[in-house]
């Protein structure tokens, strides 16, 4: 790897590791100090490596320089000794001798501690996702703003408020206790799930950015799997779900960022390796006695890796949705369940059930009804599709609905002629 590529690469992989150790060391009150030290470390690297050539082991070089800069910081700023050091684990005195621990274990522990601090429910889900990208993944406010399709100012303020909240709530960056893991893991998983969905379901045209969000969510979830204390069935189920979904990432997005419907996808583009990974982690998730919504969603996603349109497949999917809805209702699950019902039990029953849902402000509700009425009562199908069109703002959804409308019109005109 050339030096011009190496530094951005190391920034992606090492920045977050070093900074999480320093976050934990300095505490929530002084996360900016940690960030400054690591940024300066990378700045030194880009200056010195250009002049003197690459060090033998660039990663070790970064770690050494980060440690030295941290020690210098502690030595030179007497204000730190007087005011801050009381709050951190070590006193400045012992700091000179204490090695700043950048071992794999301490890096992993620090990242885990940070995940639990960042995903604290004192902040809204939206703020937690922003914080996760900022503090755990090293994304700047600008990048996060691009991901959320908003401006940098909004994200900057959101991050500042969220960090302030963590400080006022006195959230510590520390290894969570076993009892705390049980209590807080669901909200951590929810944030990672939403982070993934932000990338996967976003209408953002920047495909590589969306993919990045998904990869970051997977990386953080994998961190929880690597740690014995957080390696729980629900975590494996969530990771499995992410593998199944991202196996279709290439196949479901056009070059222009618009989405390709499931039935039109080229299965050759499905990533077999990720599908196998998904199956592996779904198996690992199948122990214990707790069935999470991630288990059910992963199992549904598993069935969708089989494109064959068999009744047996849809019967499985229907039963999984039946269970999922009993754990947690969501309009989208209700609509998908009704689609599976049509495939498993027939359209007549599904139409009757669909009409009970009365999600009358949801364009997907009318898209479903349009689909169900097609070939049963095409005039009604058309009516529903048109209602769906009037309700949606999404361009890619409009294109899909228009296509269905055209199909119906062609069919009805060929019958008349």
């Amino acid at each position, binding site marked *: 790897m050339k030096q011009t590529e190496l530094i951005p690469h190391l920034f992606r992989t090492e920045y977050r590791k070093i900074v999480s150790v320093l976050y934990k060391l300095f505490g929530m009150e002084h996360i900016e100090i940690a960030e400054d030290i690591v940024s300066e470390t990378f700045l030194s690297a880009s200056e010195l490596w250009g002049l003197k050539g690459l060090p033998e082991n660039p990663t070790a070089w970064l770690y050494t320089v980060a440690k030295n800069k941290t020690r210098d910081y502690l030595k030179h700023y007497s204000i730190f000794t007087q005011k801050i050091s009381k709050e951190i684990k070590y006193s400045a005195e012992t700091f000179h001798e204490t090695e700043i621990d950048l071992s794999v274990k301490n890096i992993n522990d620090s990242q885990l501690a940070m995940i639990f601090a960042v995903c604290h429910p004192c902040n809204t889900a939206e703020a937690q996702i922003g914080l996760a990208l900022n503090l755990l993944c090293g994304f700047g406010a600008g990048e996060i703003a691009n991901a959320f399709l908003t401006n940098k100012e909004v994200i900057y303020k959101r991050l500042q408020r969220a960090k302030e909240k963590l400080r006022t709530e006195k959230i510590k960056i520390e290894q969570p206790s076993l009892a705390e893991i049980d209590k807080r893991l669901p909200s951590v998983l929810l944030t990672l799930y939403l982070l993934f969905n932000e990338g996967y379901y976003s209408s953002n045209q920047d495909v590589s950015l969306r993919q990045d969000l998904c990869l970051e969510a997977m990386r953080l979830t994998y961190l929880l799997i690597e740690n014995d204390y957080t390696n729980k069935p629900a975590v494996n189920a969530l990771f499995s779900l992410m593998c199944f979904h991202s196996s279709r990432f290439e196949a479901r997005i056009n070059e222009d960022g618009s989405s390709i419907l499931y039935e039109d996808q080229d299965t050759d583009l499905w990533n077999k390796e990720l599908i196998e990974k998904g199956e592996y982690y779904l198996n690992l998730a199948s122990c214990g006695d707790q069935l999470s919504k991630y288990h059910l969603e992963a199992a549904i996603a598993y069935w969708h890796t089989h494109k064959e349109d068999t009744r047996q497949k849809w*019967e499985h999917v*229907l*039963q999984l*949705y*039946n*269970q999922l*809805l*009993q754990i947690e*209702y969501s309009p989208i*699950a*209700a609509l998908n*369940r*009704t689609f599976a*019902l049509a495939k498993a*039990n027939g359209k007549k029953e599904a139409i009757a*059930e669909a009409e*009970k*849902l009365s999600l009358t402000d949801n364009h997907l509700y009318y898209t479903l009804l349009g689909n169900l009425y097609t070939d049963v009562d095409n005039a009604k199908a058309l009516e529903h599709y048109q209602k769906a069109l009037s309700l949606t703002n999404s361009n890619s959804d409009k294109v899909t609905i228009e296509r269905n409308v055209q199909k119906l019109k062609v069919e009805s005109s060929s019958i008349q002629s």
Partner: protein
Amino acid sequence: MKDFLFLFRANGTPTGSPDEMQAMTKRWMDWIGGIAAQNKLGDRGNRLFPSGKVVKPGNIITDGPYSEIKESIGGYSIVKADSLEEATELAKGCPALTVGGSIEVREIREM
């Protein structure tokens, strides 16, 4: 939204081939799933074992409720609805009705 209790009464113990039993389970799951899809399921509830005891004044204990009630209670669920009429409407698709069972719908009065 108010909470309503569904009390399922069966007419005798269920019989049938394993395939029929499986088909019956599916109908139950589809029915409950349909209520959940309308966001009207409060609590899926539970099924009850058929055997039990009945305690009466004077510490008189008898086996099972069968001798007293022809149809024994097989399980319960809680649904959410705006009115007794709406809750009753939800009960109409219950698979128990296809095998001679019945559902009692009662509004829950909070203590």
